[in-house]
């Protein structure tokens, strides 16, 4: 009995040139030698390609004549953004076209805060001219309403669902949109409050941070402050985690960001280190997985919310100090407003391809993601994946910071060595910067 291998070519060759090529697979390992070495090479290529395609800058929205100091997303419209500038101008942007849709000279002096109503049709702004103005861009360039206050305002934020908004000045004021006077005021020690932010899930809770290095939480239901925490240095901005309602992250003057659980504020849940200058603004991605920060060192960093160091850093030659950042509501883009009067649009994942992807392309990208994840700890791959070009001045600042920190550490260690045992205890890094919590 004999059988010899014969193949019918028609089973292996496509009939017409319009057909797809017939691909036969045989997963027998013997037919695929050197599997691991080849896979590693593929992973290396994938990580190199990722760095090659890392071009995060999408475009600049120019038009403001002064620095951009506040921005707000529209919760209903993905392409809409409002920004306020130092000369009192307010602009509404269409991100898809990168054009100004509507603009108005809203305030005398700097616009300190803008926000959007939950319905998405009305915008509010406040400024150093002690007014809060309500704008309806669809109707006119005249304010639909103006609230006159006693103090120069520093920030404004709208309630998630009710027609209520909060402003911060020397105190935090809660306004009803239909009344000309604040319905409630809160204050707890601080002479100036920098920021006020509503919790988007636990809607009645809001947080503010004061110039006296404090972070204060308020509950509108009880009409009283919940807790106050004082840190070593001032907090510049606060962002609530959209997925974990009890967590918020703060941007601190000491170049770090801290995540706190509002129920247990004597210890930070996480510290984000990497900036070399004061962090000025912070925003969570809508997934709660990532955080974008903008700092006085002219860079924007993206952190994973569970890791301590940034996953990426963005900068351009022309970008000055970043005063406000926002994560877009589809979590694919990041926006930054800086001193140079531009709002910049960045990709959240630097090497991501925009637009539609074919099935094969998507499959390839998924495969290379897996490869990168599998070999991420190998030295060559880690080195390439971590490499970022950073401006020289920031590099030198990083080195200086490193020297300073190690000197501090050494000094502390020396102190410990030369004192009686136990008199200089070790302190948790996450508790160090917290001076106290009051309830």
């Amino acid at each position, binding site marked *: 009995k004999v059988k*010899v291998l014969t193949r019918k070519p028609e089973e292996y060759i496509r009939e017409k040139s319009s057909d797809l090529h017939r691909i*036969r697979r045989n997963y027998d*390992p013997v*037919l695929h030698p*050197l599997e*691991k*070495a080849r896979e590693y*090479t593929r992973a290396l290529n994938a990580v190199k390609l990722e760095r090659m395609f890392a071009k995060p800058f999408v475009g600049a929205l120019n038009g403001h004549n002064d620095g951009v100091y506040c921005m707000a997303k529209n919760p209903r419209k993905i392409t809409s953004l409002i920004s306020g500038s130092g000369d009192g101008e307010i602009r509404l942007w269409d991100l898809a076209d990168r054009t100004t849709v509507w603009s108005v000279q809203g305030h005398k002096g700097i616009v300190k805060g803008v926000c959007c109503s939950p319905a998405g049709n009305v915008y509010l702004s406040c400024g150093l001219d002690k007014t809060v103005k309500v704008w309806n861009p669809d109707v006119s360039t005249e304010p639909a309403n103006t609230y006159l206050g006693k103090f120069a305002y520093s920030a404004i934020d709208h309630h998630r669902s009710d027609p209520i908004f909060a402003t911060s000045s020397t105190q935090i004021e809660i306004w009803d949109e239909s009344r000309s006077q604040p319905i409630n005021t809160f204050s707890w020690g601080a002479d100036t409050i920098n920021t006020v932010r509503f919790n988007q899930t636990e809607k009645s809770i809001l947080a503010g941070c004061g110039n006296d290095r404090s972070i204060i939480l308020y509950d509108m239901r009880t009409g009283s402050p919940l807790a106050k925490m004082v840190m070593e240095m001032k907090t510049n901005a606060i962002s609530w985690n959209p997925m974990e309602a009890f967590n918020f992250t703060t941007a601190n003057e000491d170049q770090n960001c801290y995540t706190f659980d509002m129920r247990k504020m004597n210890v930070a849940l996480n510290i984000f280190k990497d900036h070399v200058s004061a962090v000025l603004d912070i925003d969570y991605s809508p997934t709660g997985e990532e955080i974008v920060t903008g700092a006085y060192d002219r860079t924007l960093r993206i952190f994973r919310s569970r890791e301590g160091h940034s996953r990426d850093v963005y900068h351009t030659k022309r970008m000055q100090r970043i005063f406000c950042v926002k994560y877009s509501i589809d979590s694919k883009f990041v926006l930054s407003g800086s001193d140079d009067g531009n709002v910049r649009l960045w990709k959240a994942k630097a090497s991501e391809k925009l637009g539609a992807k074919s099935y094969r392309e998507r499959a390839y990208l998924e495969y290379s993601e897996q490869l990168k994840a599998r070999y991420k700890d190998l030295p060559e791959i880690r080195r390439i994946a971590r490499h970022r070009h950073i401006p020289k001045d920031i590099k030198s600042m990083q080195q200086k910071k490193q020297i300073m920190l190690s000197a501090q550490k050494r000094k502390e260690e020396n102190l410990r060595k030369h004192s009686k045992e136990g008199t200089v205890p070790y302190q948790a890094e996450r508790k160090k910067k917290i001076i106290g919590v009051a309830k």
Partner: protein
Amino acid sequence: MSTTDQTAARQDNNVNSKQEKKKEKEKDIETVTLNIPKYVREKEIVLGKKQLKSIKDKKVKGTLRRIESKYADAAEKAARTEMLLTEDPGYLEAEGMEKTYNFTQDQLISAVDEEVAKKRFDISLPTFGPYAFDYTRNGRHMAIAGRKGHIATYNWPLDRKMCEFHVKENIRDIKWLHNELYFAVAQKKYVYIYDHNGLELHCLKKHIEVNKIEFLPYHFLLVTVGNAGWLKYQDTSTGKLVCEHRTKLGKCDAMTQNPWNAIIHLGHVNGTVTLWSPNMATPLVKMLTHRGPVRALAVDHSGKYMATSGLDGQLKIWDIRTYKSLHEYYTPTPAACLSISQLGLLGVGWGPHVWVWKDAFTTKQQSPYVTHIERGAQIHDMHFCPYEDILGVGYSSGISSLVVPGAGEPNFDSLEANPYQTKKQRQESEVHALLEKIQPEAITLDTTFVGKIDRASKAVIEKERKQEEEERTKNSKPAKEKKKMRGRNTALKRYLRKKQSNVIDGKRLAIEKELARQRELRQKRSLGEIEKPPTALDRFEKKQMSLFSPWKLASYFFGTSDNSSGCPAIGQLIESSKTLENGKPVSEAYHLKWISCSELSGVESIDHFTEP
């Protein structure tokens, strides 16, 4: 009563159908589980349920469990895809008293269809033989090279000649490179690379008097070994000579690659087989295989078994995981060539005979599987054709292609090697292969080396790290010495500084001594303890003055700014002072200093004078 009966019956039915389903499932699982072990990759650590349970960190435990299940799932899925494999391997079975080795090729051909019969052919080439032989990786193309200079390449299934030419010099070996567009030929002196039209592309002058060529397709490495016993690796994608190893074992004409891990096996005249990677100048393994020169080598596709034949008339099977001999066979005349097919048939060519052995690695066989004889010829080279039941044989007076049922892998992987590939596919696969080219550093005995945890003890790792560091510092050039402007710098001091500080030899001691002496002298002079020797310039001495430059003084006295003064002594002085500036020896410098301090600088506050 009846209702209960009904319900009972229904339940029975249900139970029956459930059981059937379960049985089917089990059957299904059984058929799959049979093949799963083939697809399970060798694991670094085997994690049993107990080990998993003993891990305390819940996160780690979860991750590990997930990974384990993923691996198991992958193996099962791969096993399930076997259902999609359409072709079955060939076979040859004897009935009754028949023996498979008694079947001649003609008998085999008469029993199979016409398509297969076409694949069996003989080409008589009596003038330029014996013939070396090679197939491309997809088995579509065949290259032959006669010892006396005849080269031809064919697309043999289509019976189409690609090129044919004569180089008019000795040829020892021929090998395809990564696809059918290029092949390398070991000629009288050098190795040449030709393209598919027979156009000479490169002459590799570094490869001299080469006997055997191998090509590592995943690394793009051309490996040669020759009469001088040098093993050379050349990268055919960059053209760089990756490394040259001296085997120190003389002439070598038995070479093969291990297709599983790309290690090169060499057989030597002293009966040893050595295993080489480009990363080590010495063999990775040395095995004594024969009591006489090694004639031929072959390694199977899974990289587990090696067959060697020697002039001592032995044919031995080795396990190259343990480096132990498994079986030994006797060949009446020494086997000149060996080849192992994809499904593990072992082809042996000795004298005019071709014998093919089946299952020769696992059990000791009593008789061959298929035999063939080329009367009046000597077998020179033979290779199994990949993905076909064909054995190509080159002998002294031609070539022939024999049918050996059950030799080739029936189901190919299009992305690995595709016998039916189009031009576009070939181009595409070439680009992909180049992108995925493995670096020569990755050639190791253990193919799973990448990404493995180093399980050596901490002390060993530390030691290795230290060694590496030392090597690095040794290789890096010493920092170039900066020229320091400050302070006194002498040739002796500089010499000492450049020398290594911890080496103390006679020269160093002498120099140190000399330096110490000079220092002492200087000190003494500054204290005025030494009497100065009288010189011609003594007469100018009047009073002590601390610092003055001699040539300025000279110009003051003689009204000239240059050394063109009438006084020879001053002229000389100026000369010598300049040479000092240019770095003349030290003794002269002392001499001058002494002059400037004591004799010439006798005039007080000479700075206040204006030039006459």
